[in-house]
């Protein structure tokens, strides 16, 4: 699965995946610092072996941050990669928003809705989904998608589009 171009897309797709597969999906954040010193010194040894200095300090370590949302049940994997420190705060914020999907809490809009903990979930589960438009000879998978609310179904569709 290739990397998604923007963190916003990653967040949206991951959110949809989590809505569809909330208990199997895992988000892994990998922060890797590459060993730029060793490669640098190797090059140095080849070029200027006589000097014998291992001073490659100006070469700042290369680091990369990779976010991966993976659902082993369906095999969907969504990734986003960045090297910019300024994105860390926003990305952890995104992780926080996705954690609400994991915890089965209602999603926060731009303004957090503090006083509505499980109300939306509750109504969503108990009401039978009316399916007026699903009579067009669709497959048996449709009722399932309908049961999982619109978000879940949308997630599956988008996933297929991404593959």
């Amino acid at each position: 699965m290739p990397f998604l171009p923007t963190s916003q897309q990653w967040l949206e797709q991951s959110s949809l995946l989590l809505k569809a597969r909330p208990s199997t999906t895992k988000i892994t954040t990998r922060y890797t610092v590459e060993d730029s010193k060793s490669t640098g010194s190797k090059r140095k040894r080849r070029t200027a072996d006589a000097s014998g200095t291992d001073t490659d300090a100006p070469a700042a370590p290369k680091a990369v941050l990779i976010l991966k949302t993976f659902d082993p049940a369906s095999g969907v994997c969504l990734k986003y990669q960045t090297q910019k420190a300024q994105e860390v705060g926003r990305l952890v914020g995104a992780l926080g928003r996705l954690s609400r999907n994991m915890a089965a809490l209602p999603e926060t809009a731009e303004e957090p809705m503090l006083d509505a903990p499980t109300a939306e979930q509750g109504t969503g589960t108990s009401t039978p989904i009316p399916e007026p438009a699903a009579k067009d000879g669709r497959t048996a998978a449709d009722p399932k998608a309908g049961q999982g609310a619109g978000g879940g179904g949308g997630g599956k569709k988008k996933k297929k589009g991404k593959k």
Partner: protein
Amino acid sequence: MSSSHLSHDEFFTKLGELFEANRQAGKGSIFLTQKRLNYDTPSLASTPTTTPDDPLRDLHPESPLPVIIRASNGKWKDEKASKIKLSTIVQPDALEGFYIRYADVCKGGMQALKKRDRSKRKRDKAKKKKGSGAADGDKKG
């Protein structure tokens, strides 16, 4: 298993240490994972995530579920002895506060990422150095 989970304070302290160790080593990875905690909770013991009657039960749990956050330094196989694993459980009502602190620790820990202004300045400096004297500059480095 559950006894090994850390409190949030301990988790952030140790995560900070993990980042610091990574910074000192100048290489290596840190893995942070988050996942719904859908086992090991008494309220869910009698209600597994999926049942034959309701294969999509996990889409609408009766109550919000905790999230487990894990951190590791990614040492396995040959280096398994030095592996560090941290984990903590965040209850749904504590998520918001947890992630605010989490963001701070991550921002503080992921220092090797490119910074907006510094990288430009550094590049300029490097260019100047190279321009002035290549071989000498390298030796001084």
